[in-house]
């Protein structure tokens, strides 16, 4: 049964992706991309990757789509005729695809429990992480402890993106400097009422995801994106000016490095206690407790950075849209 769902989802993915090649209307392209991301997320669920599905849904279908929409709001929604040599592209694609297909014939078959992937490193995570780390969600254990340095790198990547976007588009100024023009969907009474009801719920959900990530799917990254989404919704329905009044871009800019530093400081405390960087065992008398403290703090660091960076990037893009509208 799951195989059938799998096949249908895969077929839909291919159709969606294939359609994107030929559509020249960028709005449709972006919408189809959002659908593509959601399909990916659904597929990840059927493949047991709930954490990944969660992230893909909030990032691919959420943040990426919003950013793309704000971009085409400025750049226009039509792609003009392409003049590129399609034979060249086809040649490259066929060559690369051929190499990949050649590689697949030797690949371990789908879903067998004795594939090499499941044998060498992974069993330790599955068997001993619940006792070593003390968390039921193995993904969180691996993410935050065994491969905590990767996650530190990931947080830094997000921070690097913020540096890039801020330096390219600028951090938005203070609210008083903003254009007086009242934006937002003032006409949409229903939308505003519903947004008012749901925004607190979304923030509450973000906090749940943040602190419940040790036990179920979720964690700092997803929570940060969801919390940012609540403020983005606020900005969209009640005007950017009001949102900027609640969380100012300057604050966001200074919050982003704080999360990275929080993460790093956990590692530095481990170092001071004589252990290696990011070794949480030494954070408390009992190693399992230490792991737990460490993971909660670093997840908080991730959450803070992701929240502030996503919101900051949105402000930067929305500021550009506003500027374009005035001109």
């Amino acid at each position: 049964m799951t195989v059938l769902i799998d096949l249908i989802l895969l077929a839909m993915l291919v159709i969606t992706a294939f359609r994107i090649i030929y559509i020249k209307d960028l709005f449709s392209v972006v919408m189809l991309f959002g659908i593509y991301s959601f399909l990916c997320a659904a597929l990840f669920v059927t493949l047991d990757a709930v954490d990944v599905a969660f992230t893909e849904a909030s990032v691919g279908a959420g943040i990426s789509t919003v950013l793309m929409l704000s971009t085409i709001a400025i750049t226009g929604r039509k792609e003009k005729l392409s003049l590129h040599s399609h034979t060249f592209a086809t040649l490259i694609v066929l060559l690369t695809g051929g190499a990949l297909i050649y590689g697949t014939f030797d690949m371990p078959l789908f879903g067998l429990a004795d594939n090499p992937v499941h044998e060498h490193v992974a069993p330790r995570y599955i068997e001993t992480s619940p006792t070593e780390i003390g968390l039921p969600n193995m993904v969180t254990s691996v993410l935050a402890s065994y491969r905590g340095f990767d996650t530190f790198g990931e947080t830094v990547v997000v921070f690097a993106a913020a540096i890039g976007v801020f330096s390219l588009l600028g951090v938005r100024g203070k609210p008083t400097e903003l254009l007086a023009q009242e934006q937002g969907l003032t006409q949409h009474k229903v939308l505003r009422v519903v947004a008012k009801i749901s925004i607190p719920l979304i923030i509450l959900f973000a906090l749940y995801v943040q602190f419940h990530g040790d036990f179920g799917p979720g964690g700092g990254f997803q929570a940060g994106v969801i919390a940012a989404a609540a403020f983005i919704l606020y900005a969209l329905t009640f005007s950017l000016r009001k949102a900027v009044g609640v969380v100012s871009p300057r604050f966001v800019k200074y919050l982003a490095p704080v999360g990275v530093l929080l993460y790093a400081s956990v590692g530095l405390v481990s170092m001071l206690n004589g252990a290696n960087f990011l070794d949480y065992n030494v954070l408390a008398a009992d190693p399992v407790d230490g792991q737990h403290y460490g993971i909660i703090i670093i997840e908080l660091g991730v959450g803070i950075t992701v929240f502030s960076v996503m919101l900051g990037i949105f402000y930067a893009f929305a500021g550009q849209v506003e500027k374009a509208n005035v001109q």
Partner: protein
Amino acid sequence: MFEQHLAVLPVLLPLIAAPLVVLINKPRAAWLLSTLFVGACVYISFGLVSATMDGGALRYALGGWEPPWGIEMRVDSANAFVLLTVSVIATLVLLFAKESIASEVAHKQLPLFYSAYLLCLAGLSGILITGDAFNLFVFLEISSLATYTLVSLAADRRCLTAAFRYLVMGTIGATFILIGVGMLYMKTGTLNMLDLAERIQAVESHRTINTGLAFIMVGVSIKLALFPLHMWLPAAYSFAPSAVTAFLAGTATKVAIYVMLRFVFTIFGAGYVFEQMNMEIIVLVLALAGIFQCSFVATTQSNIKTLLAYSSVAQVGYIILGVSLVSLTGLTASLLHIFNHALMKAALFMAVGAVFYRMGSVQIIAFQGLGRRMPWTMSAFTIAGLSIIGVPLTVGFISKWYLVTAALEQGNWLVAFLVLVASLFAVVYIGKVIEAAYFKEPSEDADATKIKEVPVSMLIPMWLLVLANIYFGIDTSLTVSAATAGAEALLNGSSLVGGVQ
């Protein structure tokens, strides 16, 4: 305590400094803090080089989890040597950048610039010292994102399209590497490099591994700008701020070359890549084609930054040529040239940056008559240029000497001959600039009274590099022994498993 963490500090220091710089948000303080941290990295790299000189390796398990379950940092004489190169160049460029960047980037953006610079350095160091294939991808992306930002900060609008092209190519390259690593992981179940190396030997059917190798090689080749995948590089180098170009030319492609060496020699094994797959022929041909094509294009350029950028692609060809000879001498020549080329290209780009600082242009017309007006800058350019050509008593000569020796060792007269012929192109394109600087009258519209020598803070790092060019061209004991140790470490990848300190 300090000793214990030696292997992780080169990544950690810039990673911690980058957010601090944003928090401080004052250009001068940001510069000071960056310089302090990067300088500390140089000190640590020296420590790492001396600690690994005897052929051993330092390993550092992050989070206290022993590999392959956790991520490890792993420093041997090969990456310690490249790490030293990178951190030295980073420090000198940072000294140079203080004046140079302030004139090219808006004052408000300076803290962001320094932060991106530190992130880039952290990413590059991370790529060098990590012992985990996926962690390498993460650091690759940190450095790439920071690089796109750095390139796009220039005032010239063309830097934007250059950065975008770089972003598209770079992302495709990184994703190719991700595909390759995924295929290796699929067949072996591990991500740790040493562990991978061991377990790849045990894999019986090779198709997936072959495909993984192909994807990793193509992905890395994009990153290191191997001909014909180099098209992003000239644009990015030409339009980035001067200091950024000097930094990238000295470090980014070098680190990518190291990644290729690490994958080829440590993970796949030279025997597999070169004997079973016969990669050395493809690589040799591409390297030679790149040397000739790009050297030729360089001679036709009138924008000196573009000229030097094409020259960089050609020099990458020399390095890859050394690798394709698959011998100890060839590999030593490659590692030597990684170091030596970083010295000369950083010096050249700094000199061009200095010219841009005064003249506001890097077209060849702007160089006319500068020999008298900016004597220090132009003499620095001349010496570093001679080094590129490979004149004796400079480091360029040493690299070429080892490269030709390696080719002759294998009786490969043709390659040795071609290397020497290609040097003639360098004579042409460097000579063009020198001729303009010393033997032509300044163009009339240039206001002669305004042109004077650049501030001392820009000259010092430039001349330190130039002096290093001469010093290491005369006294080669230090660099050659470090490069030989590195080459040995790479060639005997398996023996290092036991050589852990």
